[in-house]
């Protein structure tokens, strides 16, 4: 399957005098992907980002945006076609929120009416009340201002968004909230996002793929799981020891949820020859109304597969399908079990998560 490539860097370097701050960096960002660049300060991540919209011109190499070399594009047109969000937000204090959001549309001389409509649409997209449009930036909190910053970047409906530590200047609680909102928003808008951060947890959370930079060089590139499994000493040190759990925290439990598990109708014998019993230690007893009555360890069944009602052990406390793999593993550890039932409040029993499948995520035999 070939996927469309939105941004491509080919051996891009940036020199300041003799200093090579970005050293032959190459990567591609697929359409609709969130690509995170991370590294210690001074590693060149922000410089690399700013070369994409040519706020900083590159010294050598090629930068392709939607297949066209940026050297062949007018920088103003290029920037107008790419959304840009920065850490210090940079709202214009003398303009209202509406004028701030519609700023690009004003630059491109779109009609006033359209500017207003678009601002109204976008302020709702980022979850702020409509009456904020007439306020001034100073009247908003930092988190609210950055939402306006995101809305502003979306005004011209660009395919690509560049985000330079967008949530770096807000408190941790607001940051988490903004990250969640970005993920929720991304589900509906499906933009290509190049995201710079120095926070590994944030990288794991928002990134589909992560590139780690060190002294201007791209030292590691891959999905969060691939990054965690890297053997590189620098990468290991940089991401820290608890990183696997942070990655697990970003994977929904539904990825490892098994909907097929061995069941038996209540009052019926368990067919011990059934193939589905392979790899399982328990069989789950289903009542006539399709609800799960509980489970019986295979080892405690009679040799012909029969059992009595008092052998049925009630299901342990179930978890919701909204949790992450990290939480699921934690629940298993608390319960002293290697599996966890998942129950949706509305639609009932969803399936079983086994510790083995979680471990399989790391081994890579299940995605």
């Amino acid at each position, binding site marked *: 399957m070939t996927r469309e490539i939105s941004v491509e860097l080919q051996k891009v370097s940036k020199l300041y005098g003799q200093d090579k701050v970005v050293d032959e960096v190459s990567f591609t960002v697929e359409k609709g992907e969130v690509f995170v660049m991370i590294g210690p300060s001074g590693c060149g991540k922000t410089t690399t980002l700013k070369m994409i*919209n040519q*706020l900083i011109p590159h010294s050598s190499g090629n930068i392709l945006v939607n297949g066209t070399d940026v050297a062949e594009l007018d920088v*103003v*047109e*290029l*920037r*107008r*076609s790419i959304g*840009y969000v*920065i*850490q*210090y*937000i*940079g*709202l*214009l*204090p*003398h*303009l*209202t929120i509406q*004028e701030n959001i519609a*700023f*690009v549309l*004003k*630059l*491109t001389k779109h009609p006033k009416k359209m500017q207003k409509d678009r601002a109204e649409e976008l302020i709702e997209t980022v979850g702020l009340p409509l009456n904020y449009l007439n306020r001034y930036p100073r009247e908003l909190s930092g988190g609210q201002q950055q939402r306006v*910053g995101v809305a*502003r*970047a979306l005004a011209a409906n660009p395919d690509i968004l*560049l985000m330079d530590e967008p949530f770096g200047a807000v408190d941790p609680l607001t940051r988490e909230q903004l990250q969640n909102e970005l993920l929720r928003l991304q589900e509906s808008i499906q933009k290509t996002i190049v995201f710079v951060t120095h926070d590994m947890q944030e990288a794991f959370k928002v990134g589909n793929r992560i590139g780690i930079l060190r002294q201007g060089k791209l030292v590691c590139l891959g999905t969060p799981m691939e990054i965690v499994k890297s053997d590189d000493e620098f990468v290991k040190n940089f991401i820290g020891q608890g990183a696997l759990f942070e990655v697990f925290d970003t994977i929904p439990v539904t990825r490892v949820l098994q909907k097929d598990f061995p069941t038996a109708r209540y009052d019926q014998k368990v067919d011990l020859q059934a193939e589905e019993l392979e790899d399982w230690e328990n069989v789950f007893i289903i009542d006539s109304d399709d609800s799960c009555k509980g489970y019986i360890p295979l080892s405690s069944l009679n040799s012909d597969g029969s059992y009595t009602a008092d052998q049925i052990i009630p299901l342990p406390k179930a978890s919701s399908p909204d949790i992450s793999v990290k939480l699921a593993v934690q629940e298993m550890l608390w319960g002293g079990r290697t599996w966890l039932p998942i129950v949706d409040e509305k639609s009932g029993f969803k399936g079983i998560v086994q510790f083995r499948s979680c471990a399989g995520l790391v081994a890579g035999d299940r995605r």
Partner: protein
Amino acid sequence: MEGVIGFFQYFWDIREMVFVLTVRHAWMALAGVALGTLTAVPIGILISRKPRAGNVVIDLAGMLYTIPSLALLGFLLPFMGLGWLPTITALVIYSWLPVLRNTVTGILGVDPAAKEAAKGMGATPYQLLINVELPMALPVIMAAIRTVAVLTVGITVMGALVGARGLGELIFQGISMMNNWTILAGTIPVSIMALLFDYLLGRLERRLKVVTSSA
């Protein structure tokens, strides 16, 4: 008490002359401020792009600023003759330093994040100047213009010495005749004019803020 009434009586007697001189004084001062601003703001914008070369220009304006007004008028006299021309020229020269300096300070002081965001969104250098730099530097530039306006009304008084015919004529006449009433008849309108200019420019500043924020 008698003195006060006497002064008003005197003022009423010469009201026509005071009126003519006030109008002349006002337009010379206004022309000085206007021309000074119109020259200094664009130069200030230019030199804010090249701060090192800019320092030379500001130092030059600073040197001109230190010349006593009487000496400057005397220096301009051979080139420009008598009347309003050397006076207004002197006013323009005195307005340069404050307006230049504040224009540069104002533009360099614009929040770098705001500039970067605007540039990143594809503002051309001109759009950046009009939509971001000038509006954000406006309060600092206006502060200089208001200072200059008050200063200029005062310096215009000196113009009377080169025949510019402002309210300075009454003041110098009063001094030479040792007539306090004549001095007051020139000084009071000068003071009121200075306050009025400052007030009006303050209102203009608020108006401009509204305009730039709704454009």
